């Protein structure tokens, strides 16, 4: 699980071009949207693509994505739960 979180951080930084951030700058429970890392709805769509391509985990409804993408921990938990 720990490894998954670190891997996710690296992937998110690269995918969303967050040049100013290092993986250690993102807390596992830090909110990714809004005040925290500051992601927005376009990033949410990118994260849906990431989860499906890299982990084979599907999110059909962007609304559902909102909860899943709350933090690195919630994403990791969602992947663990749904990965085949």
């Amino acid at each position, binding site marked *: 699980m720990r490894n998954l979180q670190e891997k996710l951080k690296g992937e998110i930084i690269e995918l969303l071009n967050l040049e100013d951030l290092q993986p250690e700058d993102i807390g596992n429970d830090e909110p990714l949207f809004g005040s925290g890392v500051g992601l*927005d*709805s*376009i990033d949410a*769509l990118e994260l*849906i*693509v990431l989860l499906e391509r890299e982990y084979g985990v599907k999110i059909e409804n*962007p609304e559902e994505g909102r909860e899943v993408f709350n933090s690195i921990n919630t994403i990791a938990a969602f992947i663990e739960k749904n990965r085949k």
Partner: protein
Amino acid sequence: MSHRVFVSGYGIVSALGFGAEANLNALKQQVTGIAPPQFLKTKHCTLPVGEVKASNESLAEMAGVSDKKPVSRTVLLGLIAAREAVEKAGLDEGQLRTSGLISGTTVGGMDISEHAYQSLQKGERVDYTKSFSGHDCGHSTQAIATGLRLSGALSTISTACSSSANTIMQAARLIKAGQVERVIAGGTDALSLFTLNGFNSLKILDAELCKPFDEHRQGLNLGEGAAYLVLESEAALNARGGVAYAEVTGYGNANDAYHQTASSPEGKGAFLAIKKAFEIAGKTDLTIDYVNAHGTGTANNDLSESNALKMIFNDQVPALSSTKSYTGHTLGAAGAVEAVFSVLAILGQHVYGNYNLSLPMSDGLEPERNFRSIKIDHVLSNSFGFGGNCSSLIFSKV
């Protein structure tokens, strides 16, 4: 000095058919043009689209194009619609020669270049001259002007889904300012893998028939088409004894400045655009009888637009419908397609139904369900797009 701006001709091609008459008949019969794609070769073969029901070969024949090189559907659709408009206006060769053209499109010749690009990526030999020279937006305008033998000023506007609403606004502004006397204005866009997959990646396409302003709306259906209006100053129209079918009395463009693709929930940009259109119309007692809404069918647009309309009309929103439920969202052509529907509504004194509506949104707006006759003096037509672009036009009875 301010000149009045008249609509003296119109032409249209959409999923509903070729020409104003065919389109009007379909709207009267309440038959939608949206269906799974027949001509666009896509993996998304079940996604409903408002496709023009003809192959490129038959479109080329209709458009009178005999080029050896592949010609974009965007050009072909545009030529067919623009030719109908100038014929309806009864412009002779000399009048055509001095007419300008302002055309709107979002992806221009993408339907051709996306296939060539694919071959290029795979390392296959591509005949570049044939495939990429018509990619840019300006190419379609030039090709339509050449086809109609126009020698006036040319302009191409690409403001996403409001492109052709903006061409009509631009033409009206130029005529009002006395800079030109006659302009053909409208837009054209063909379906492409690029736009279909693009909207699909945004997760705003409805997998079923779209249902604008419905509580359970799921998104939009893409469409394709073209429509053009001939716009003339009063002096130019009278000088040649042309017929005024309607008058462009108001127009407004504003930016929502909220998000790159989404509209602000309160409809700030839409509200400003409509307000500007009223200011240009300059009449305090102007009563809008029908609103041809942007109404794409996405959760976001329809909510934002409803809120803007409620604010403008103090909750007394006039008869309203989205004809995108019949044509799909024709992107760069949408503003002009709906401008033609607005002119036809004035001429026929009717409003269109909002197809496929079962449960209206819970916010109180009651879109028209059926085609019906009502008295119409003024129509408001809205077009909003990516990049926060919001445009509104007002057409009035002459």
